[in-house]
């Protein structure tokens, strides 16, 4: 009897351990920091180390707590609305990320489609070839484009030699280079879910449409595209959400007129050393991204339920 009881206790403890360790780890290291970021976004910048006025003084007890709460100010958030650098950065990040997502879709759809319709024996290899760049350094892949897009870079050399252009195109340090960088870096994120939904498709539907005299182009828009929509949506979220907060691409490929919030936050933090304002920038960015993130999780959840 006792042995069974202790086994049960053991099993319970084991369960608690397996849930508890990753749970507590994420609570402390992932969730708690967001509250700290929020707290610091409400404090004022100070010339000290760390460079913000402390918001909590535990030794002061309840009175001190009340005093700090009353000392919270939304001044940093007001500042974000006053200086047009910030809202212009947010707006332009969303626009750049949105445009780049559409471009990625335009490049990625034919690739995913071609892969899904290729002979079965090719597919594992093609799939690995899409995943492989994902394993190689992001920084390296962005860096590779600098040498191509520079004024005296390979693309301009090529175009000049062919005679398409007479003087070099200025691409590096413009928004065009940022678009290219985002499309290139995030392409696998879009192709993989899209390929998955295209591959699952029942091809007999297309055959039926063709037998009934439906032209291929129309069959694509009325059958294939709607059926691939789950993949399109999942892939677009996977490109759009991280692209909004992208820092490396606008910093290395973009120019001075490229406004993106990731870059603005980085400057605010590392150059101006204004931690409270950078925290406020991060909080607002998070609020902007919460909508697509929740939509994305909802979409994934529904897709998982459908599959089950």
């Amino acid at each position, binding site marked *: 009897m006792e042995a069974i009881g202790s086994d049960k206790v053991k099993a319970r403890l084991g*369960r608690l351990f397996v*849930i508890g*360790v*990753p749970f507590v*780890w*994420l609570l402390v*290291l*992932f969730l*708690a*920091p*967001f509250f*700290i*970021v929020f707290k610091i976004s409400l404090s004022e910048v100070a010339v000290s180390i760390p460079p913000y006025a402390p918001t909590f003084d535990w030794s002061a007890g309840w009175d001190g707590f009340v005093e700090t709460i009353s000392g919270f100010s939304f001044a940093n958030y007001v500042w974000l609305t006053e200086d047009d650098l910030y809202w212009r950065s947010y707006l332009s990040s969303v626009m750049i990320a949105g445009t780049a997502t559409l471009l990625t879709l335009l490049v990625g759809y*034919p*690739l995913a*489609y*071609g892969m899904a*319709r*290729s*002979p079965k024996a090719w597919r*594992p290899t*093609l799939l690995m*070839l*899409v995943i*492989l760049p994902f*394993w*190689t*350094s*992001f*920084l*390296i*892949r962005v*860096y*590779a484009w*600098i*040498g*191509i897009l*520079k004024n*005296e870079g390979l693309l301009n050399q090529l175009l000049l030699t062919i005679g398409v252009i007479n003087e070099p195109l200025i691409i590096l340090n413009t928004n065009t280079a940022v678009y290219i960088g985002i499309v*290139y870096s995030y*392409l*696998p994120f879009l192709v993989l879910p899209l390929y998955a939904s295209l591959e699952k498709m029942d091809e007999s539907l297309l*055959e039926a449409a*063709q037998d009934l005299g439906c032209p291929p182009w129309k069959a694509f828009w009325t059958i294939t595209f709607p059926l691939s929509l789950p993949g399109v949506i999942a892939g677009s979220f*996977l490109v759009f*959400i*991280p692209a909004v*907060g*992208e*820092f*490396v691409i606008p910093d290395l490929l973009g120019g001075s007129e490229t406004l993106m919030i*990731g870059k603005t*936050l980085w400057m605010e*933090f590392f150059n101006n050393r204004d*931690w409270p304002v*950078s925290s406020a920038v991060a909080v607002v*960015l*998070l609020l902007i991204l919460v909508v697509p*993130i929740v939509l994305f*999780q909802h979409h994934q959840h529904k897709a998982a339920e459908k599959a089950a």
Partner: protein
Amino acid sequence: MRTGPSWFNITSIVLGFAFLYLPILILVVFSFNESRLVTVWGGFSTKWYGELMRNQQLLESAFVSLRVAFLSATAATVLGTMAALVLVRIGRFRGRTLFSGMIYAPLVMPEIILGLSFLLLFVAIDQPRGFWTIIISHTTFAMCFVAVVVQSRLVGFDQSLEEAAQDLGCPPARTFFVITLPLILPGVIAGWMLAFTLSLDDLVISSFTTGPGATTLPMKIYSQVRLGVTPEINAACTILVGIVTVAVVIASLATRRQEMQRERDERRAAAATG
């Protein structure tokens, strides 16, 4: 009806892969360039690799990166595998929604927000920043990727084996190590490799959570890239790309072989019992 792949499909595959691979190929080719100019071919040479070997700072940062990646990938694999078990094998418990939210959110969260929040946490608890704070933050975001990879492996296998072991009185912990772990091992290994490369690759989170004396390779490369493109960086990148490519190809071949072996075993077992 259709017999072979159409010309449209072949063209889109070829163009798509050309776009994905040409930039990296060009980078590799120009790392063997004699000339200091990165975009003008001046003949074959390996001198930039020699230069690289003499660049003490770069080598040191590479060593820091490798240690960070190894330690954080190992920790992330343990935590991520546990998290995957929680998501797949343990049914309902209080806080499940919060738990799965915390697993999926870091996958799409901009790194810059993660970096800032880690930094502010370490400052708030008065933890001096450096080598270990990078490892802790890399572990945290990499464990979510490991969890997703292992989860997909766990979903795909036959649970009756675990049930049989438990019915025969095997305690849960032993069941995990004897039955479950060997079956999900390809997923766990893939998760570890993913965590390793994510850590090796990370610039933004490391820049926020680092302290004096802990410069990782991406941080070093980034600061040099800002000064301009050099063949030496091309050489460093080529080595990194080479290592990753070889590792991924070996891993996928090994997985495929193991899978085939398993299928053969299963068929033999079925034949023996039938």
